[in-house]
C-alpha cells in the first residue's frame, strides 16, 4: 500500500501487510516495517498499540472439534449421501442382501455390511486413516471389567460406566471418552499422549497408572494418580481441546499419591493428597523406617521419598530433635502422629503438603 501518512493504530491494524508482520514476520516484512518506522518515528506508539490489538484478537481461544466429533459428523454426511444416491446403491448386491437380512431381523449384520460398504467407497481416502472408528464398551454388570486397548494399555471399567475408544489409535494422540469410573494403566508412548475426556475434565498422560471418577450425576470429577505424572485440565462441556494446542491449557500436574478434584458447580480444579497415601517404594526398602537417634531432617526425607509427599517444617526449631522409632506398615497419618508425639510437634495436611509445627526439643 501507500505511505500511510495519517495512520493511527486502528488503520495500521487493518492493514493486511501489518497483520502478516505481527502474525508471522518474514525478513521482507520486517525490513519494510522497520523502514516505515524509521521514516515515521512519531508513529512508534501507534504501531505498538496496533500490534497489541492484533495480538489481542489472535489470542481469542480456539475451539476445535474432537476426533470423535469429526468422525460422527463425517459418518452422518456419508449416510445422507448414501440415502441421496439410493437408486445406484440399490443395485449393489451387498445392500440387497443386507436388506433381506434386515427383514429377517439381522440388524447388526446390516450395520456390519453397511460399514464395509462405507469403507469401500472411501478406498485410498485420507478419512480412513485419520478418523479412527470408535467403539463403545459399557459395563452394566456388578463387577469391574478389564479391557485391553490396541496400544496395550489396560483399563478396569467399574460398574455403570462406559468407555468410547477407537479400534486403533491415530498417529499423534490416543483419545478416549469415559463416563463413570475407571482405573487406567497406560502403555508408555511419549509420541502419542493418552487423553481421557471425562465430563468437563481432560486428563493427559504419557504412560502411567491412575483412576478417574466422573459420573454424570455427581458434583465432582476426581483423578487419582498411582504412578508416573499426569496433567489435568478443565474444559466446558463438550468443547474438546485440540491436541496440538493443548499445552496452553494445562491445568495441574499430578504426582503419585496426589489427586485432582474438579468441582463441576463452580468449575474449580484443586489438587490434594489421597486420603490414604500408599507407599511408593518397594518393600525391601521399608527397613529405612527404623530410626535410631535419627535427625528429623532424615526422618522427613525418608517419608517424603516413600510417599511422594512434601513435608514443610522449621529446620532450626527441629534441629535439636532426634527420633528413636521403628515404623512399619502404619498409614502415613499414623506414622506422622507417632513421630510428632515423640518430638513434641503437631502436623496438618494442606493440599499436597504436610506441615509440621514443632516447639523444639530440649533435653
Amino acid at each position: 500500500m501507500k505511505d500511510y501518512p495519517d495512520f493511527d493504530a486502528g488503520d495500521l491494524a487493518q492493514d493486511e501487510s501489518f497483520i502478516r508482520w505481527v502474525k508471522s514476520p518474514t525478513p521482507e516484512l520486517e525490513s519494510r516495517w522497520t523502514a516505515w518506522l524509521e521514516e515515521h518515528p512519531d508513529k512508534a506508539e501507534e504501531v505498538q498499540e496496533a500490534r497489541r490489538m492484533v495480538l489481542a484478537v489472535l489470542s481469542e481461544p480456539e475451539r476445535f472439534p474432537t476426533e470423535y466429533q469429526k468422525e460422527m459428523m463425517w459418518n452422518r454426511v456419508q449416510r445422507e449421501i448414501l440415502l441421496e444416491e439410493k437408486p445406484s446403491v440399490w443395485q449393489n448386491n451387498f445392500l440387497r442382501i443386507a436388506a433381506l437380512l434386515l427383514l429377517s431381523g439381522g440388524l447388526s449384520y446390516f450395520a456390519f455390511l453397511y460399514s464395509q460398504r462405507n469403507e469401500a467407497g472411501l478406498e485410498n481416502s485420507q478419512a480412513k486413516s485419520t478418523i479412527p472408528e470408535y467403539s463403545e464398551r459399557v459395563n452394566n454388570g456388578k463387577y469391574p471389567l478389564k479391557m485391553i486397548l490396541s496400544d496395550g494399555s489396560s483399563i478396569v471399567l467399574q460398574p455403570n460406566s462406559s468407555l468410547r475408544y477407537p479400534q486403533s489409535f491415530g498417529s499423534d494422540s490416543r483419545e478416549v471418552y469415559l463416563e463413570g469410573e475407571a482405573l487406567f494403566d497406560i502403555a508408555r508412548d511419549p509420541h502419542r499422549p493418552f487423553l481421557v475426556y471425562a465430563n468437563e475434565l481432560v486428563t493427559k498422560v504419557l504412560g502411567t497408572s491412575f483412576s478417574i471418577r466422573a459420573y454424570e450425576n455427581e458434583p465432582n470429577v476426581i483423578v487419582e494418580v498411582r504412578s508416573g505424572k499426569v496433567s489435568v485440565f478443565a474444559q466446558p462441556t463438550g468443547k474438546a481441546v485440540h491436541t496440538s494446542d493443548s499445552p496452553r491449557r494445562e491445568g495441574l500436574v499430578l504426582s503419585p499419591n496426589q489427586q485432582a478434584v474438579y468441582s463441576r458447580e463452580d468449575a474449580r480444579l484443586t489438587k490434594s493428597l489421597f486420603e490414604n497415601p500408599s507407599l511408593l517404594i518397594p518393600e525391601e526398602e521399608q527397613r529405612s523406617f527404623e530410626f535410631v537417634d535419627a535427625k528429623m531432617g532424615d526422618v522427613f526425607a525418608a517419608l517424603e521419598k516413600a510417599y511422594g509427599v512434601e513435608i514443610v517444617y522449621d529446620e532450626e526449631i527441629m534441629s535439636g530433635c532426634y527420633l528413636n522409632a521403628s515404623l512399619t506398615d502404619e498409614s502415613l497419618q499414623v506414622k506422622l502422629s507417632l513421630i510428632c508425639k515423640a518430638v513434641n510437634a503437631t502436623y496438618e495436611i494442606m493440599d499436597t503438603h504436610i506441615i509440621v509445627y514443632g516447639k523444639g526439643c530440649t533435653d
Partner: protein
Amino acid sequence: MTECSDSVLWSGLKRGDRTAFSMLYQRYVGLLYNYASRICKDRDRIEDCIQDVFVALWKYRKNLAATTSVKYYLYRSLRSRIFKTAEDHEWNLQDGVSWDDMENLIDLSPEEELMSIESGDERTRKLKKYLHNLSPRQYEAIMLRFYDEFSYEEIGEIMGANPQSIRNLVARGLLHLRQYAQFLA
C-alpha cells in the same frame, strides 16, 4: 502423503472424487467448527450445519463454480445455514463463565510469559477483555479479518454486506476497543 492444493481437491470434488471430498472435509472441518463457535453457542446446531454444508457440497458438486476460494465458499455456506436455522439467534460466546475463567487461572508457560511481556502484557490483556463488548457483527468481522485473513470483499460476501461497510465495521470495532481499554480499565 502429498499435499494437494485446494483447487486440485475442488476440481476433484466436481468430478465426483470421494477421496478429494473427504480430504476437503479433513482440511476444513476444524476451522469451520472454530469459526461457527464464535457466532453460535449451540454445539448441536454447529454440528448439524457443518454436516449440511458438506452434504450440499457433494449433492450440488456439478454446479460449483470453478474458481471459487474454497475456504471462503465454505465459510459463507456455513454462516448462512447457521443464521437460517436460528430463529432466535443469540449472541453469546461464553457458555456460562467457566472457559474464560479457566483460561485466566492457568499458568502461562515460560515462553508464553515472555511473549506476553514483549507484547505489552497488561494492555493486550485489557484489549482482549473488551473484545467481547463489541457488537456481534464487529466482533465477527474483526475475527474474519485478523484470524482468517479474508479480504474485505470476501468478508462482505460472507456476512452479506458491501466491502465498504465491512471496512467501517472493522474500523469502528477497533476504535471502540481502544476507547474501552483506555477509559474503562
